[in-house]
Structure formats: structure tokens, C-alpha cells
């Protein structure tokens, strides 16, 4: 009985030592991974800062104005002016649909071709 306890204790100590060693190792691995991730994040943040600066630089008003002017033929962009505002009354009514009776005729056609169709 006593010998059994000793053996069990020894086994437990070895198991705990192994567990502790593994945990230490995993922790070190995790720390290394964390460092590399932080380096990556730092790098990405820097890149993000550069992209944001680049975005702001490409969208600077001077450049957009020049681009709008250079592509006037295709885009027809102009500075906003008061004359571009409109009143709702100035909008014409949409033209009446040309095939006003279209749906009716279709229904009729379906009805006649298949006598059991229910309306």
C-alpha cells in the first residue's frame, strides 16, 4: 500500500514536470508568435498610414479638379452651381407607358389558350 503511494507520487511528479515543461514551451512559442504578430501589425499600420496618406494625396482637391477638367469630354463634371438645383415641378411626368393594354392582352391570351385558367 505504501509502496503504491510512493510510485503514484513519483509518477505524478514526473507528469507534472512534463506538463510544466510543455506549458513553458508553449508559452514561449506564444510569446514569439505574439512578437511576430505585433511586428506584422506595426508594419501593417505603417502601410495603412501610407495608404491613407496616399489616398488623401490622390484625392486632393487640386488633382480632382485637374482630372475633372481633363476628362470633361467623357464625364462632363462641373463645379456645383446654384443653377443646378431644380424644383420638383420642373420634372416632367414620365411618358405614359406605350403598351398600356399589354398586361390585359396577355391575361386575355392566357385565358383563352387554357380554358381552365382561373382569374
Amino acid at each position, binding site marked *: 500500500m505504501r509502496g503504491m503511494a510512493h510510485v503514484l507520487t513519483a509518477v505524478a511528479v514526473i507528469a507534472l514536470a512534463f506538463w510544466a515543461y510543455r506549458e513553458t514551451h508553449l508559452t514561449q512559442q506564444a510569446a514569439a508568435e505574439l512578437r511576430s504578430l*505585433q511586428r506584422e501589425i506595426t508594419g501593417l499600420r*505603417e502601410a495603412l*498610414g501610407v495608404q*491613407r496618406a*496616399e*489616398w488623401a494625396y490622390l484625392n486632393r*482637391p487640386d488633382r480632382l479638379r485637374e482630372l475633372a477638367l481633363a476628362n470633361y469630354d467623357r464625364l462632363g463634371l462641373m463645379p456645383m452651381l*446654384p443653377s443646378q438645383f431644380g424644383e420638383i415641378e420642373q420634372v416632367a411626368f414620365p411618358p405614359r407607358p406605350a403598351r398600356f393594354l399589354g398586361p390585359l392582352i396577355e391575361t386575355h391570351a392566357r385565358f383563352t389558350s387554357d380554358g381552365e385558367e382561373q382569374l
Partner: protein
Amino acid sequence: MTRRPLRPLARILDARARGENPDAIERENLRLRAEAARAQAHARAEGRLLVLAATFFLAFGILGARMGMEAASAPAEPTVAARPAADGISANRADIVDRQGRLLATNMLTHSLYAQPQQMIDPARAARELARIFPDLEEERLHARFTAPGRRFLWVKRRLSPEQIQQVHDIGEPGLLFGPREMRLYPNGRMAAHVLGGAGFGREDVRAAEVIGVAGVERVFDEVLRDPANGGKPLRLSIDLSLQAAITEVLEGGVRLLDAKGAAAVLMHAHSGEILALVSLPDFDPNHRPNPLVEGDPADSPLFNRAVQGVYELGSVLKAFPVAQAIDRGLVHPQSVIDTRGPLRWGRFRITDFRPRGPEQTVADIFIHSSNIGTARIAQKMGVEAQRDFLGQLGLLEPLPVELTEAPNARPLFPRDNWSELSMLTISYGHGLSVSPLHLAAAYATLVNGGTRVEPTLLRRPRSEPGARILRPETSDAMRAMMRETVARGTATMANVAGYQVGGKTGTADKPRRSGGGYYSGRVIASFVGAFPMSDPEYVLAVALDEPVETSGVEARRTAGWTAVPVAGEIVRRIAPLLGMRPEIAAGTADGITRVRN
């Protein structure tokens, strides 16, 4: 503990007398002694085991707690500047954004190039190659510096682009090294240059350099921008980039057409004092801030902020103040008739009108047609003290509280010690008191916003309490009506942008001679200060042009009505839609349809 003898004599004698073996007593005692020793050893071992167990328990407990804490800790992200900064040099600086969050200033990581000559293998080749990459470096001088005895370290170039870094790498010289540098970048170039100011390097080190603001908001908010406690939160200005760009474009056009030396424009929110745009021309690129002039007039430098630093005698735009004050005190009302026979004499001094319009005019007409004599007579009704107090209340006699380094030094000029009756008369129509266009914009904001004081600011203020009341709301109503009339039928008709009810006042002032004494003829500062829409003004616009001349007619015209006013009108035309305002045209009966209720 007393040691008991193994063979106590009394018991031995006793045992002998009884004929027993006395050795049995000795053995018995030996056994007892051994037992006691064992019990003691057992107790000690038990105690040690207990201590050991407690130690292990504690150790595992700590480990467990630590693991738990690690598992529960919030994930933290490193920032760019989380790198250990050298010698406490903080290389992190927050961004500056406009009111809609568009980037105005940010940082970029670049590298600077330095050399350690004692590590160089071939200084001659390094100098030659560097001179090839950077045309502004001279090969001979570089070589001389590389080979100078005792030289251990030297800067070669402050900022490198990535391409240049690669080219320098390709030289393959181990004595050329790179140090990281945060660089302040203004992606919009010259836009809002005077507001932003600029930044330079402070303390420098191989591994990092401090970026510090040298002017404008960069300087004023230097501490805030660099404070790590803010966590890199961007500084949000009240400036709107689109408005700034539109106003800059129009103003640049105006300067070109009118051949002006410079110009300034300010767009301000009439209630909160937020400055939406502040333009001063000529301007500069804050990425390459020029050096200040060491001689001559600082106003000739592009660094000079005409809207804030430029204190000028702005002329008739100041007439609004005596008129407003007189109406507010109930001394006159807009239809009161004032004697405007000229010239008005004061000692040797004569006050005349640019275009006399008869012997008598109403207050409204005096304002609308800008009569010097009439305004002087109105000012006479109130006196020196009252005038001085009122201008002080409007903030026209002290430097602006705006957040620019240049502001505290831009003091208005006025007769500080002898504010005489004559000063009162000339100041009433805008001569003898020099203020900046931004001063005027803030004071006009008070005139039109219902009469509360406005303090200009460059920071985004989402909601602000109205300032101290200076004028009665009815006075503000009367001023608005007269300013609207000025644009509708007075001196500023060219600013009458259909649908936006622009109102304002013009000013044309001769420039004082720099040498002192007298005025230049043919050199004026033309200005226009206005607001829109006049029914409930939201925005105040001040435009000033330095030495404009309009040459489309037979003779050169310099008055504000022909120079500053059309520019201001064009600005309103361009920015009002950007501000999301639709023109209010009197509703026409489109297609003959009449609105009816049913």
C-alpha cells in the same frame, strides 16, 4: 530536557534486592529514549513536508492565477510608435483632419541617410555614387567630409524616398546607414497652408526624431498632438476642405484677373464662430515651408497670413459699426434723415464723400451708398467713449483668440492713448483703426446673428452656447435689411447671387505709406464683408484684396464694388451649393399650374 540516566541507582538496587536482572531496566530505558527520538524526527519531517507542500501549492497557485490573468487580459495592439523611442524622443504625432474627417496632416515613415566614415571601404566611390543619386549633393565636398580625419558620424540626407533608399543600398557601402524618420506630410499641398502652418524636426537621434510644429495650429496644439495620452486621436478642425479648395480657386482667379498683390478670405459660421475656410494668398506648401524673410516687409512673404496677421485700415466696411450702435441705442432708426452736406470740417481736416448724393440722406442710404460724412455725423451723436467701448465689445481692439500662433501678435492698430474727436470721426468710416479680415468677419457675425458675440475658432464645435449679447435682436434685423439693400441696389450689386439673399458692405481704403505719413494714391485694399442668406444668416464671408485693379473699362477701377465684390459673389455662387443650400427663387407658376388645397 534533563537527560535521564539509563541505570538509575535506586531502581537497580531495588531490582537487585528483588533478584531481578538490572539490565532489563537499562534496555527499557534505551527503548524509551529511542522512541522519543523517533517521535521527534517524525514531527520534524512532517513539518518539512507541510512547508514543502505549501510552497508547491503557492507556486502552482501563482502560476494558475497568472494564466488566468493572461487569458482574461484584453488584447492590445501595438502602435507604430510603440517601438522603444530613443532617449524619450516621442516620434508619434496625431493626424489633423478637417470637419468631415478628411486628412489634412499625417505622418509617414521615411528614412534619413547618415554615414560612419570609419566603416567606409571606398569613400571616393560612395561620394561619386551619392552625387549621382542626389543631384543636389556635390561629389568633392562629400568626399572631403567622408575623408576628414577624426570624423565618425555625419548626416548626408534628411529624407529619402523608398526608391532612393534602394539606390543607396545598391551602392553596397557598409558605412552608409539609414535611420528611421517620422515625416509630417500634408497631402493637400498648399491647401489651408496658413492654417496648418508646418512642422520641422526637433531633437534628433539616429533612431528617431521629434516632429514639432513650427507655425499655425501645428504649433498651437503641439503639446496635444504629441501627447501619447491622447492615443493618436486626430485633431479635428472646423475647416472644410471642399470649401477651402473652392474659395482658394476663386480667390486665385480673382488675384490673377485683378492683378492683386495678395488676397484673403474667411468663411465663418455666424453663430458658433467656426472658421470653415481661411485663405490667404500668396500661399506656400507646408511640406516645404519656406524660410521667413530676414529683411523687407514680412507681408511680402508667402508665410504672411493676410486673413489674420494682415491688419489693415479696411475703410467703409467699418461703417456698419457706428450705424448699428446708433440704431441699438435708439438714437436713429434706418429711416432717420441725417445732414450729409459736405465737406465736414474738423479743424484743418475735411471729410468728403466719394460720390456726394445730396444734402440729406436717410441712415439706410448713408449705409447703402457708403457716405463718409453721414457716418461721421452719426458717430458724433454717440461720442468717443461709446465708440471705443462698442468696438472693444466686438473684439476689434484686441488680438483674436483664434488658435494660430500668429494671432496673438496681430494686434489691431488704433490711437491707443489719444482717441480724439477726430479719431472718432475717421474711425467711424474706417480710417485710423486697422484690423484683420478675420476680426471683421467675427464682428459682422455679431451684427447679423441676432447680436451675440462670436469668438472665431478653428476647432470643430458641434454645439455652442450663444455668446454675450451685444446688440438687440431688432438692431440685427435692421442691419441685415440694410446689408441686403447694399447688395441689392447699393455698392455691392455684383455680389447679388440669385436665390441666396446675400447682404454685406464694401470697403475701399487707400494703403498707408510704409514709411509713415500719408497714403499711396492708386493703391487700395478692397474688401467685402457679407453674410448669407440674409433672412437668417448662417455664414459670414469676408474678402479682402491687396492692390487690385480692374482694367476691363476705359479707366482702371479700384473700388471694392468692381474688385472684391465680384470675387465674393463668385465665391458665394460656388460655395453655397457645397454648403447644401438650395437657391430660394420666388416660386414661379411652373406650367401654369396653381397649387390648391383640397
